[in-house]
């Protein structure tokens, strides 16, 4: 966990890509889940944030 946080602070690709991936996966689950309309409403914003973050952080150093 400390390594992950350190990686985030030092702008390393691995942890940031992990964070972006989690956001994308969360957004897709929110988009397609059958439980709460509110989650569906916010799903696109979460997926978009994750996707843009993924594109940006894939240029960070290893």
């Amino acid at each position, binding site marked *: 966990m400390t390594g992950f946080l350190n990686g985030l602070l030092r702008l390393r690709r691995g942890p940031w*890509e992990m964070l*972006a*991936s989690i956001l*994308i*996966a969360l*957004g*897709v689950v929110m*988009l*397609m*889940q*059958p439980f709460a*309309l509110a989650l*569906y*409403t*916010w*799903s*696109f914003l979460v*997926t*978009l944030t*994750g*996707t843009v973050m*993924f*594109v940006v952080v894939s240029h960070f150093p290893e």
Partner: protein
Amino acid sequence: MTHSLIERAAEGTPPGIAQKLRGLSDRSIAWIFVAPTIFLLLAVNIFPLIWTVYLSFTDYRVNRPNRDIEWVGLANYERILGDAGIWSTMQATAHFLLWTLVLQVLIGFTLAYLINKKFRGNDMWTTIIVLPMMLSPAVVGNFWTFLYQPQIGLFNYAVGFVTGKDPASFSMIGDVSLAPWAIIIADTWMWTPFVMLICLAGLRSIPDSIYEAAECDRASKWRQFWTITLPLVLPFLMLAILFRGIENFKMFDLVVQLTGGGPGNVTTLSSIDLKREAFEKWRTGYSSAYGVILFVTVFGLASIYVKALNKVKER
């Protein structure tokens, strides 16, 4: 012949142009060769994408081209993301996507594993299994509607034969609870051979020497499967899932032909709904926003999936 052709082309080039070309660096010449492809990509992929994003912020209707286009900001996105109807199409898409992938991977891999064993008629069976994939989705959709007919359908008779139920007592494409499974079965029948072929390529790429070494170490068949076969086939399997996942996310033709999105809206997948909004209701701006949402979802998923695939390949 080729040499003389090149020579003739060189002789035919006007001196001024030849002089200029001779002065070009390798990098410039590379750009000249690549430029048509880049131009085509920009014209066919990038420009429409940017234009769709622009239209998603407007109330543009393609059937009223002379009307002024009004900038509506995020209104289209707000309406889509607050619409319970579209939410249910997303759930139908998720159900279809999940089950088709699970079934196609399980059956496809099993078939590939069996076909990979050396037996008589191996090639003939491969050809027979691959046949459904070669048919048009519209044709497949059409004949599965006949197979699912409660009165004359072979599928109903087969189910009746196995379960003892009256074949006319249920309708696969008319029943709200069965229709989602009807499209899953038809798609699985059609596209499992594709997964099988990719898995077969993976299985055939594993050298026999690895299994021989495992035999020497007295590894059981079960252990060989989990420690050799599966890890080495995994990148191929993941590729198959990626291709089928993207393809099924935008599944249209087969389902339209089979159920038309019904009964009610239970088999209305997001691509079918999108087509209705764009080309039946002619709400171009609204459907552009819908398209952008689907695009971002697929793009995001594909990004993390490709990253995972690369990690598996590196192992």
